[in-house]
């Protein structure tokens, strides 16, 4: 375990994340002004989508379908118990939105885990990128149902139909680039895919490092907001990922995933969405406050997973596989 923690902490992308956080702590004026972070995140989505598609094209994996089914199921169901737990502290819309964010997934956490896998030399089969795309939205649907169930939300915006909502979450820019790149990676013949390699693979860790530098800034800027949210919610934001990771671990073992794929699966379960889910929630559950669900996902759960979660989950897999 300690070994994994150390090698994760010495992974350049993670170090750049910490550098970003440090910059906020020492009140540096360091900033990656808009739209630089957007460019970096578009690049990352395109690159992992394309790589995943190309990998999927080469080795169609028999476990893939099982993994996909379980992934979607978990994404759809995990919000239920989180909602139940969160209702102790939050009203219905906020509990539902937070449950949706934590049921959904974070692409950057996934990517950081995948970079870590390569570093420690574990194999991954590539189809988990599709899992990432598939786990993005079931939680959102569940979250919206929970928000409205029994609720008489009177105002206009939230009368979004499930169809419109599905579209909203599937066609969110980030999801579309990820899914589209996956399909393009699948369709492209291997020779073409190779011409993209210096872009999608060569500079990947560098761009990831730069993006995590920005994420460090963003996450650390949220820390001052955390105080207002109170200890109970911060506790939730620390506990829920671990609980979800446990569920993911169990499922990955049952499906029989390889240890590399298992880590990615567990990280998907443990991570919380701060892009797709919030975008959908702002439209579908406008009564919920983004200052709660985005702040917790970005300011607590993301750092937790990137810094400590990944080595923790890999240690657990090392133990049980």
């Amino acid at each position, binding site marked *: 375990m300690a070994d994994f923690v150390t090698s994760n902490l010495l992974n350049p992308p993670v170090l750049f994340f910490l550098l970003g956080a440090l910059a906020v702590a020492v009140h540096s004026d360091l900033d990656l002004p808009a739209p630089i972070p957007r460019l970096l*995140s578009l690049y990352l989505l395109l690159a992992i989508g394309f790589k995943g598609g190309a990998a999927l094209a080469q080795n169609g994996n028999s476990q893939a379908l099982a993994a996909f089914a379980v992934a979607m199921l978990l994404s759809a169901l995990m919000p239920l118990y989180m909602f139940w737990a969160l209702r102790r502290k939050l009203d219905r819309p906020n509990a539902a939105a937070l449950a949706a964010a934590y049921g959904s997934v974070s692409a950057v956490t996934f990517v950081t885990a995948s970079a870590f896998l390569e570093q420690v030399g574990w194999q991954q089969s590539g189809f988990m990128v599709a899992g990432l795309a598939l786990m993005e939205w079931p939680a959102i649907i569940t979250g919206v149902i929970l928000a409205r169930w029994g609720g008489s939300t009177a105002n206009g915006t939230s009368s979004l139909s499930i169809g419109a909502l599905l579209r909203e979450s599937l066609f969110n820019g980030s999801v579309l680039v990820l899914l589209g790149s996956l399909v393009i990676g699948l369709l492209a013949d291997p020779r073409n895919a190779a011409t993209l390699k210096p872009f999608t693979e060569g500079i990947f860790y560098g761009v990831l490092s730069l993006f995590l530098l920005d994420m460090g800034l963003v996450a650390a800027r949220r820390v001052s907001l955390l105080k207002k949210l109170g200890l109970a919610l911060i506790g939730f934001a620390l506990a829920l990922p671990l609980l979800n990771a446990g569920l993911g671990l169990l499922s990955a073992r049952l499906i029989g995933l390889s240890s590399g794929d298992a880590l990615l699966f567990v990280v998907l379960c443990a991570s919380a969405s701060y892009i797709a889910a919030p975008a959908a929630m702002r439209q579908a559950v406008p009564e919920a406050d983004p200052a709660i669900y985005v702040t917790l996902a970005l300011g607590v759960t993301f750092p937790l997973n990137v810094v400590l979660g990944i080595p923790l989950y890999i240690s657990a897999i090392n133990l049980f596989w």
Partner: protein
Amino acid sequence: MRPIKRVEIVADSADIPQIIRLLERRGVSGYTIVRDVAGRGERGMRLGDDPGGAFQNSYLLTTCEPEQIEALVESIRPVLQRRGGVCLVTDAWWVRH
């Protein structure tokens, strides 16, 4: 130069399309948008720095005839009340035409 009402709105970037729809329904045919402005209001700091754009404002500037201002303001007021954002009205003169 003729007198006109100058209307400026700062709101969540995601709400701008809806506000524009309401304005256009009231006959507004010209406006200017400054994307990605930062700010602070009742909903706290909005730096536009989160990767999903959940805290990003846009600034919208438009005009209308003095006699239409009440109706126009009433049409967007519900959005502002529900979703946040501010709206200022100023007297101005319109050059050209």
